[in-house]
């Protein structure tokens, strides 16, 4: 079970792993926007090739990425099929009441399919190669400008790192409580919707109380270790840009330039 909890991070040692999480997070977010620059076959080919380059650079097995796409495959297919049947224009091949299959519809469906898959692929590249902790650090860095509008970034960062640190602990706790309740006859896997929802009560109540107790203990420990509100804290863990991040920058700039050159006006 503990495989699920560490995000979907897969340890490795390739090029992508050495990049700074801030860069990876930014590029991933920007990728979602620039994918809309593609509007013809050439640009879609370019962005597909670039995505697979990124996937290849992780040196991970294809199965990891398939696992990323799999849960969303029905959504992707559904959207593509809708595009296929409801887009009109160009040459019309087939028509039945409101359903039409046209040349535009076919290309649109394929475009949407590619667009969806690539966005998922690229976000998977980030999540499998970056530890949740690093992602939290990167998010903190991206949020830093909000300091100027008085958003307490330090506290948010601490909250994020504590939340991440307690995900595996609470998960273990949940399993323990489930097993304890099972040994007293609780049944979590059978029955209808209402019966199952009721079965969750003996799991949720102790879990909730445990979390509150943990929070009290943790805050006592933090305070006695000298944590105080608003004091000037220093940081042990910092992120460093390296030469690997230049590759990433180059990758992104070349991709954007190619897309701008080849897209139809």
């Amino acid at each position, binding site marked *: 079970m*503990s495989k699920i*909890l*560490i995000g979907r991070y897969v340890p490795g040692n390739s090029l992508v792993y050495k990049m700074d999480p801030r860069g990876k997070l930014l590029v991933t977010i920007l990728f979602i926007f620039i994918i809309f620059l593609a509007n013809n076959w050439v640009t879609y080919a370019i962005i597909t090739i670039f995505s697979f380059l990124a996937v290849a650079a992780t040196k991970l097995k294809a199965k990891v990425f398939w696992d990323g796409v799999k849960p969303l495959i029905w959504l992707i297919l559904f959207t593509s099929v809708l595009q296929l049947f409801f887009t009109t224009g160009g040459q019309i091949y087939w028509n039945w009441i409101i359903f039409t299959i046209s040349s535009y519809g076919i290309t649109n469906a394929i475009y949407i399919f590619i667009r969806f898959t690539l966005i998922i692929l690229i976000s998977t590249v980030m999540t499998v190669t970056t530890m949740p*902790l690093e992602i939290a650090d990167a998010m903190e860095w991206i949020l830093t400008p909000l300091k100027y509008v008085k958003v307490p970034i330090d506290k948010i960062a601490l909250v994020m*790192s*504590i939340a*991440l*640190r307690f995900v*595996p*602990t609470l998960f*273990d706790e949940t399993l323990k409580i489930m097993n304890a309740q099972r040994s007293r006859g609780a049944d979590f896997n059978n029955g209808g919707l209402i019966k199952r929802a009721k079965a969750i009560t003996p799991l949720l109540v102790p879990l909730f109380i445990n979390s509150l*107790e*943990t929070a009290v*203990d*943790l805050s*006592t*420990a*933090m*305070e*006695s*270790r*000298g*944590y*105080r509100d608003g*004091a*000037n*804290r*220093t*940081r*042990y*863990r*910092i992120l460093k840009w390296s030469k690997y991040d230049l590759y990433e920058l180059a990758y992104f700039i070349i991709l954007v330039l190619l897309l701008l050159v080849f897209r139809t006006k």
Partner: protein
Amino acid sequence: MAKDSIIKIRNVSFTYPDTTSPAINNISFDIKRGSWTSIIGHNGSGKSTIIRLINGLLVPDNKNSPYIEVDGTELTDKTVWNIRDKVGIVFQNPDNQFVGATVADDVAFGLENRGVPRSKMLKIVPEAIKAVGMDDYTNAEPSNLSGGQKQRVAIAGILAIQPKIIILDEATSMLDPSGRSKILQIVHQMKKKDNLTVVSITHDIDEANLADQIIVMNNGGLVDQGNTKEIFSKVKLLKSLGLDVPFASQVKEKLLQSGISIPKEINSEKELINYLCQSNSKK
């Protein structure tokens, strides 16, 4: 005695909100610099509350003019942070005091709070981790560590801030026997090396046996105070408070009951073995 006491507590009472009877009832005691003190008592006798009063997590009731002094500084609103710098506490549950996402982060937490520059932390943190023998786990996450290892990390976090006093608040009660002895061994070494004062709250009689001084508590009051030998020879008193006695005292008690006379001054396991061997060879 005043000068070499590192902790002085005078007339301290404490009542938790929403309760009528005080958790701590007018307690006074001293703890000597460089000593190892154990506080024993059954559940709910107020042991943990005492600790939280010492580093200002709780504030004593305002009656009988309470006074708490740590290392020459009186505990007030202004000095509470200075006092927390001098006192390091290892709590009971190893899971609930691990703040950082990795071992190194957790050890650095106390230093971060004190605004220690990063260049210094890079030196202190590995040293502290090494001192507790966790150097192979520097980047490990807490969910991959055993309870004993987490407590060792907690001790490293305390080592990093170089306190004068270490308090073990039932720190070994959730550990297996090997984890427990390892922790006690590390604390013992640290105490020797830096001349630290150790206060341990414990149910474990073997751990209490390591101490120079024992404080016995019952229902928020101080019942007895003395060195290990004195306290553990009072088998009846301890049993009436629902406490255990060391194995040697138990054997002695049983021997006395079955009519074998053993001198009063014999209390430790070694003395008892020697005495029994001698009296046996005389026959």
